[in-house]
């Protein structure tokens, strides 16, 4: 486990995009080291922007961010690089060049900690192919380790992106809609792998999810976002169906779920029961 405390604290942060769109309005969020939180909300709620601000890829236009008690935007270039190497981001559209082999794409998670010569040597002979395969096996993709990424489907590529972050062994894992291209069973498996990383290594985990049932099942704390603001932030057990319906009021009467062909309420309640049974949840 890391020697650094990796709690994350966002205080009254706002973000205005260059085109004038206000994506975050005075958002405050505090995560203890090793905690895990799901961020849910309708499209355009600001979930992606929140993840990018937490991951130090966007500087908030107002308010402040502290990771392990340190404001990343006050750090020097080298210290900021070291900090970023400890933050793993799962992107919704995995930013992986199609010509890369899967093993290289996964091991790219280690570039922040490898010396440059090892990074270059690893392009010719993978430095730790076993680690890449282990990460892929956890996502049911172990046999594709030496394939090229352009031979993979969208869902497989998304899991390669998750495997990269598992391989990175980050202290803070930020997942932006990490399973949007996966079928229900694989989505469950993949979120489970991220949660296992949180439980086994104590990595702080923030996942934005469009599927409410996955959030209810795997996360002890839910943050609801709408129009760039946090609408609720409570233990999962205290989130009511009415609050969820209110959150998704603009998207019609059906809550977005990963499970197919099931209409809201009964399934919702069942998911809630499962969440209550999981170890580590309230």
């Amino acid at each position, binding site marked *: 486990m890391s020697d650094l405390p990796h709690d994350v604290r966002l205080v009254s942060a706002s973000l205005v995009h260059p085109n004038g769109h206000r994506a975050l309005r005075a958002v405050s969020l505090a995560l203890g080291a090793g905690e895990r939180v799901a961020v849910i909300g309708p499209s355009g709620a600001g979930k992606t922007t929140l993840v990018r601000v937490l*991951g*130090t*890829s*966007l*500087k908030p236009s107002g308010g402040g961010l502290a990771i392990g008690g340190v404001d990343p*935007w006050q*750090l*020097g*270039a080298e210290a*900021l*690089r*070291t*900090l*970023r*190497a*400890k*933050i*793993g*981001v799962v*992107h919704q*559209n995995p*930013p*992986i*060049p*199609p*010509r*890369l082999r899967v093993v*290289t794409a996964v091991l*790219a*998670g280690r*570039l*922040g*900690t*490898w010396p*440059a010569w090892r*990074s*270059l040597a690893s*392009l010719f002979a993978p430095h730790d192919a076993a680690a890449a395969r282990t990460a892929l096996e956890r996502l049911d993709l172990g046999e594709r380790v030496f394939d090229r990424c352009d031979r993979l489907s969208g869902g497989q590529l998304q899991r390669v992106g998750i495997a990269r972050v598992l391989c*990175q062994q980050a202290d803070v894992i930020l997942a932006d809609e990490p399973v949007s291209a996966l079928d229900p069973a694989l989505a469950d498996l993949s979120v489970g792998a991220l949660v296992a990383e949180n439980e086994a290594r104590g990595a702080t985990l923030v996942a934005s999810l469009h599927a409410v049932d996955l959030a209810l099942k795997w996360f002890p704390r839910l943050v609801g976002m709408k129009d760039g603001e946090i609408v609720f932030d409570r233990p999962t057990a205290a989130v009511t169906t009415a609050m969820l319906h209110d959150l998704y009021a603009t998207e019609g009467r059906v809550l977005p779920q990963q499970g197919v062909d099931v209409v809201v309420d009964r399934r919702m309640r069942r998911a809630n029961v499962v969440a209550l049974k999981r170890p580590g949840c309230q």
Partner: protein
Amino acid sequence: MSASAATLPAPAPLRDPAARGRIGALVVAVVVLWPLLALAEFKPWQLLAPGNLQVMANFLAGFLPPSTAPDFLALLAKATVETLAIATAGIALAFVVAVPLAVVATRSLAVSRIGPGPGRAAGAALRTAARAILTLLRAIPEVVWALVFVRALGLGPGAGVLALAVTYGGMLGKVYTEILESGDTRPARALLEAGSPRIAALFYALVPTTAQELASYTVYRWECAVRASVVMGFVGAGGLGQLMDQSMKMLNGGEASSILLTFLALVIVADALSAVIRRVLA
């Protein structure tokens, strides 16, 4: 039914908001281009005037048949090898000049551009300086550099190699920068956001997406270097150019056409080489 359809208001015609700008640009292009053609004394119909046709035909007839005298062919072979050596050594040196400058100048590899991070102004200044050096190197034609270097190194291929290294270093660096910036830059940004050093981001994200274009442009420049050695031969920098200079001065059209056929063969070889490299990198 038809009555209700008739009472509906006619839909407003859908206007393309970009159309006006495009038509404007087309008009500007014509208005600018016309005086330029007049200024350049562009009068292609003069080519077809009977007297001119006769003069050109006489000139071209002097080139036939291509010379096949054994001692000339021996000279030609030696000059061809020399030209290939000048072009290849020149491009190799140009590559060494171009790559570091291109890496510095490429915006998508700039860590300081992610958010307004530390060292942003210094990074921008460094990139501008690298671009300025590239501009300076390629602004002066290789034949001028050759004249300079011939003074220092004396007549011979050495001056040609140095002249190519300088000018083509500037060209390669500029175009490498543009190719690296024109591909998908998200993979590189994602790696930099995970603490990767820029050299690793270059080889794990940008090169895999742009390898074919980089290789294709490099081989094309090698082909240009082969042709450029003609001009440089005129200033005594060796190779096919010097041979061409001698043949033209002696008004020996047959020898000149043999030399031109050699160029044709070399360009075909460059084309094949480029195709093979692109296939390997695909």
